[in-house]
């Protein structure tokens, strides 16, 4: 039983180096800056509404990309199927959002 169990556990070939917190803290700071920028655009914004909308969506998209790549490890190896899984969801969502915006706002 124990031998069988041990066989199902793959030990790493070489001693893996643990990644430090540095990258994640940088991702945090980037997210923080993008969040502050988004609020700043709205609070101080004297620009057109459409410009603000585009800026907000872009900054949200960048922030989400950073968080998914680093915090959710999507940039790491072996994440092809996770990316396919989440992307198929995103494609459906894009279709729905475009439909809602097109029907309600134009």
């Amino acid at each position, binding site marked *: 039983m124990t031998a069988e169990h041990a066989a199902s556990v793959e030990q*790493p070939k070489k001693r893996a180096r*643990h990644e430090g917190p540095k990258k994640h803290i940088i991702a945090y700071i980037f997210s*923080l800056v993008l969040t502050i920028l988004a609020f700043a655009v709205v*609070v101080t914004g004297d620009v057109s509404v459409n410009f603000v*909308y585009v800026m907000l969506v872009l900054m949200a998209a960048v922030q989400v990309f950073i968080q998914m790549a680093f915090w959710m490890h999507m940039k790491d190896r*072996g994440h092809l199927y*996770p990316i396919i*899984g989440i992307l198929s*969801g995103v494609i459906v969502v894009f279709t729905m959002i475009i439909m809602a915006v097109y029907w309600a706002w134009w």
Partner: protein
Amino acid sequence: MSGHSHADGVLPHEPEKATLEGRNKVLGFWLFLGGETVLFGTLFSVFIALRDQVNGGPTANELFSLSVVAAATLILLTSSLTSVFAIQAMHRNQPKAMVNWLLVTILLGLGFLGLEIYEFVEYAHHGHTFAASAFSTSFYSLVGFHGGHVAFGILWISLLIWQVLKRGLTVVTAPKVYIAGLYWHFIDVVWVFIFSVVYLMGKVG
């Protein structure tokens, strides 16, 4: 497969990927997150379509207080970072540090939830109740559903902490913690779109 730690008692590097079962759990969870994306997408598209239908009630611009939203955003973003630290502690095989970071994550989650409840109560006093208008219904459906996810995450991570304290960090418990971390990040990712699309765009007009 039994819940005991394996023969030599040494936890492998990245214990969440050490067994096929663990890897399948992570993959299955990503597919679930794809479904969750669709689910939140439907709520977003309904909100976007109906957000101006206030039915004589308060508008988004009159209602929202950006300082509360900014505080909630900061709290949730920080909790996402502390859950990263928990997974890193797990990779260093430090269950105690992992549990501590998970506790910090839960506390921040509770803080976020408290702010949201305060906010909703405040809105209700201004006549912004669930059935007041198409705007209010779609608002509470979207933001409340996210809040429900936060509440569920707090409950889930609490149970995981209890299980790790009881059984230790093994190749069976590690994938569960890793998946809960993914879930928590996903909650934060959804919030990024909520504060951008619901609150900030609501303030602009």
